[in-house]
């Protein structure tokens, strides 16, 4: 287990370019034997994601492949930009709102959308952003930017959008 932990930690360090950023999740409270480096426990809630400003940072919206929460290489420059914005605006709290396309079932889509938001948050933490300033929310398939069942609508809707909490 120790070996696996270390190699995963190394992997994360390589991915994020920042070896000291690993943080223990709340999961540690339930026993250290279940330590999981993928856990970046979420901050206390702030603001209201429903009324956040999703326009200002719209260009940094991250798009995903079907049924995936992997941040693809082509999307990473957006997050470099977003991390830069956060470091220049250290008092700004943002929310990452995750979304899915219209396919799939409601609960799994809710969880997948949240997972996408979490993946973006963890990536930003890896880039040095403060996790305390980044909340997450998942809207499943119920906040589409494009309606309908076309491939292009599905592609538009599989996203994680950064919003400024106010």
């Amino acid at each position: 287990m120790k070996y696996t932990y270390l190699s995963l930690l190394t992997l994360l360090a390589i991915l994020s370019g920042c070896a000291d950023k690993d943080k223990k999740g709340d999961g540690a409270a339930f026993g250290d034997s279940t330590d999981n480096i993928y856990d970046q426990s979420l901050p206390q809630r702030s603001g209201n994601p429903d009324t956040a400003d999703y326009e200002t940072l719209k260009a940094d919206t991250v798009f995903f492949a079907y049924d995936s929460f992997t941040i693809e290489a082509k999307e990473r420059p957006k997050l470099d930009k977003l991390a830069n914005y956060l470091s220049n605006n250290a008092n700004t709290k943002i929310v990452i709102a995750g979304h899915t396309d219209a396919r799939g079932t409601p609960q799994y889509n809710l969880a997948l959308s949240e997972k996408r938001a979490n993946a973006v948050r963890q990536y930003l933490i890896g880039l040095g952003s403060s996790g305390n300033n980044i909340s997450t929310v998942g809207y499943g398939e119920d906040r589409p930017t494009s309606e309908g069942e076309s491939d292009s609508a599905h592609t538009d809707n599989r996203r994680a959008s950064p919003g400024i909490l106010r």
Partner: protein
Amino acid sequence: MLLSHSMKLILPTLLLTPFLLLAQSSAPVIVIEQTRKVDVAISPIAGTEGPAMTKVLQNDLERSGACRIVDPATAAFTLSGTITPSGLAGRATPKSGGAPLVESSFNGDARRATHQFADAFIQALTGTPGFASSRITFASASAGKNRKKEIYLSDIDGENVRQLTQDGALGYGPKFSPDGNKIAYSSDKSGYRDTYVIDLTSKKRSIVAQFPGQNTGAAFSPDGSTLALSLSKFGNPEICTIPSSGGEPTRLTNARGTDCSPTWSPDGTQIAYVSDERGSPSIYLLPATGGSPERINTESSYSTEPDWSPDGKKIAYSISSGGGQIGVYDLDSKKSRIVSRGSGLESPSWTRNSRHLVCSQNGTLVLLDSLTGEAIKVPNNLSRNTEPNTTR
């Protein structure tokens, strides 16, 4: 089940002579062999609401899957009843004469009492509980990009629709408590997705889980004391349990992926849930106190929304192939099968008989017979109905 294995072997004989054992015990006299139906007639129910209730009873018996409505001359049983001030006096008489299969008074308004009469008859006929008196809760959405989803309650035949929430938010996944008096659901009405419990008796609502991140998919344990739900406070949606009135979570899973949609075994010892730990979403089993998850083979690459049957023997789930179908996994044989026809089906919820499932199909609620694949509409005037859940 109520019958021993040896009893089952002689059932075909019993089916041919259903009333011989009537006087001997209150044990079930017939088990319907698969899709075989018993011929039943209904005498018009007496009383001012009689004609309407006659139709209600006929609908209930047809939906049970155990009866075919026929002319009294050829019926094995004839049902008759009278609407009374307190409900309905009902009776089911075998063709041969002899003791009635059912002779009882049912309390409540005429409709409720009629449903109870239907259930008593089905129970006596098949040894399996009827579901005509069950209710369903579900979400119904408005249209558009900024849609809202509110939580509703209705009878299982689609009547008596009541809107429970007016949150102006996205309500998801309503689930009944075992006694049917409470409904847990999640809503983002605070801006974040919390879990609420509505008490249908006191008409009060309380927040039971509002941890950072998402609090979704809550399902009551069979004793009602505990909720299993998916919490993302750890940074990942994980299956947890909390006291059903709220409290600190006990974390059951620890996976890199997405864990959601818990459902309890009827004995409360196990939880089935969805995880995409190994790629696409699959169904896993886990001891309710925690332990090693075991993946079940549903023979589908995208299986979600497990629902454990009341008899404990099966787990129903949604599969994405074929545009949305319902599968059933048999825990004894470890075999799975597709039980629906057509497409657009999801969110199965077992009824009391562990045979029928209420599902949504392209936004309409349907009653699916898992033995025949037949789906009958649960009509209501609402659109975009999702995630039905049935009282047990």
